[in-house]
């Protein structure tokens, strides 16, 4: 069961990581936690469903259509809501995102009801490997649709996002803006374009995560995305908020730790309902010991400015002293 738990954790991480990177990108550039991210995932899941039935196309077309749709939706959010709250601190956009989350969630409820829907892709038989789990003596298995598809897809997307952030000019500008927005502006970086591009990327990731989550749990309902949002936040905070690479790491740690709880619970007779203690316990522990997260930079409260201020103060004191004496 240990090997099985590790594998399950990896699969779960692949869904969480898509959402976590999107959330972290927006936090980095806009400096607020987007509570509508979970529901943007849900919208993505439903839009893929709508697109497949309307266009009578396969789920791949639905996925691509959904990615494009939610990316545009996210840009519209920035245009209509978040760009207008610029410069008002993190609270105003945070509250606005909670409002958007409720609007999206309830709009889906009105449109589709609260029932479980599926993509209608027949669930294939699980692949059973030849490897025996040392703990239970059972063979390790994975379902191609619920496990292999999210895993492979997430790996490709993570590689693509890494490429964009590391090697494209826009990606570098996103990192620069996230790092030091004031300097980005005086350097001539088109900060507004960067913001819109970040929203588009974040929306695309939300849609991809939503559809993959739909596969994973083999069902779509209006709370699909928001039900994992807290877990996604745990991953983002664990990795270091604002750092997309930290989000990857956080998603892996959280998901694997959570899945390793199951064999532990069986062995120690602990009720499995306690499982959520694991990710959030880890999150609390990390916040206490390393508030900047695993990969985040120290929340240094800007040491260089402080040092400069102290120096200025010391100089003005010595200056006045000399004037008094001279």
């Amino acid at each position, binding site marked *: 069961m240990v090997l099985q738990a590790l594998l399950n954790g990896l699969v779960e991480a692949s869904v969480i990581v898509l959402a976590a990177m999107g959330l972290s990108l927006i936090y980095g550039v806009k400096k607020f936690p987007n509570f509508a991210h979970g529901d943007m995932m849900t919208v993505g899941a439903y839009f893929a469903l709508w697109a497949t039935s309307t266009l009578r196309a396969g789920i791949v077309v639905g996925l691509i259509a959904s990615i494009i749709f939610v990316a545009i939706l996210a840009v519209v959010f920035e245009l209509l809501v978040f760009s207008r709250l610029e410069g008002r601190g993190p609270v105003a956009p945070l509250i606005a995102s909670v409002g958007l989350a409720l609007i999206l969630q309830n709009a889906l409820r009105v449109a589709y009801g609260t029932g479980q829907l599926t993509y209608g892709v027949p669930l294939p038989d699980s692949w059973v490997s030849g490897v025996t789990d040392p703990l239970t003596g059972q063979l390790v298995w994975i379902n191609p649709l619920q496990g292999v598809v999210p895993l492979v897809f997430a790996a490709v997307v993570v590689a693509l996002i890494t490429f964009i952030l590391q090697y*494209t*000019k*826009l990606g*570098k*500008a996103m*990192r*620069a803006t*996230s*790092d*030091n927005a*004031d*300097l*980005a*502006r*005086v*350097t*001539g*970086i*088109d*900060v507004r*374009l960067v913001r819109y591009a970040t929203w588009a990327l974040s929306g695309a990731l939300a849609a991809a995560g939503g559809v993959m989550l739909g596969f994973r749990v083999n069902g779509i309902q209006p709370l699909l995305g928001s039900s994992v949002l807290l877990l996604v936040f745990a991953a983002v905070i664990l990795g270091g908020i604002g750092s997309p690479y930290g989000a990857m790491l956080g998603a892996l740690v959280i998901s694997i730790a959570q899945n390793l709880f199951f064999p532990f619970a069986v062995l120690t007779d602990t009720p499995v309902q306690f499982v959520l203690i694991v990710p959030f316990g880890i999150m609390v522990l990390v916040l206490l010991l390393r508030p900047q997260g695993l990969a985040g*930079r120290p929340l240094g409260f*800007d040491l*260089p*400015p402080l*040092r*400069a201020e102290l*120096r*200025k103060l010391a*100089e*003005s004191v010595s*200056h006045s002293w*000399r*004037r008094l004496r*001279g």
Partner: protein
Amino acid sequence: MTVAALLSAEGLVAGYGEVPILHGVSAHVDPGELVAIIGPNGAGKSTLIKAIFGLIRVTEGTVVFEGEDITRRPPERIVSRGISYVPQVANTFPALTVRENLEMGAYLLNYGISGMISRVNGAVVDALRKLLGLGGARRWYGRTVTKAYMEGRIEAVLELFPDLRPYLKTRTGKLSGGQQQMVALARALILEPKLLLIDEPSAGLAPRLVDAIFRRIQEIHRAGTGMLIVEQNAKKALGMADRGYVLEMGRNRFTGPAKDLLANPDVRRMYLGG
């Protein structure tokens, strides 16, 4: 003033919020001239640079650069006009490598796909502005160049700061304060500005590093770049400057060639420590 000034600020009133910090400050920089702004803390030295660069609200007065009124223009458009700004603190992108910092300095130089994206973005923004009736205030999208030109610019600033060469792939946040200051200067020079605004280049640096930075500034000056430098270290700043302004309480106090200011007994007594 017989020569047409590169930059001339006249009667600037500016500040944060409602309270002005500058009460009608004037200053000019001729082409290729190094001008130092000195004065006690709170005199408005940094504020003057920020007002010129469009970072704070200017309520009265004008800023003219190469005969063009740039008062109240946003910084990103002033950069494109040929003025670069080096802030006093937080003047690098610490999470980015040194090379990436320089590339961000060259953000306005577009080539390949980025040139295309920037042009498409420009066209879309223009079309939207027209559609929404916001008028044809053309935004500025940078300059399209070849990749070789961009690489040449990075190479050129690295020649000026050869110490940075071994650290091109190092995260800038890991460098020393002096090295980071060099990254900041190099970043600002990528676009070949005609005027460089530098806010306290010696802030927080050890004396030995201050000398190194000042030598680099003099090299940049010899290459023909006009500079306006705010500096706490008044003696050193006037020592290398062509001309100087002494500000006090947001007003011009003394003005003149740097060596006259250095010789002026009042300036010496009040600002140069006797």
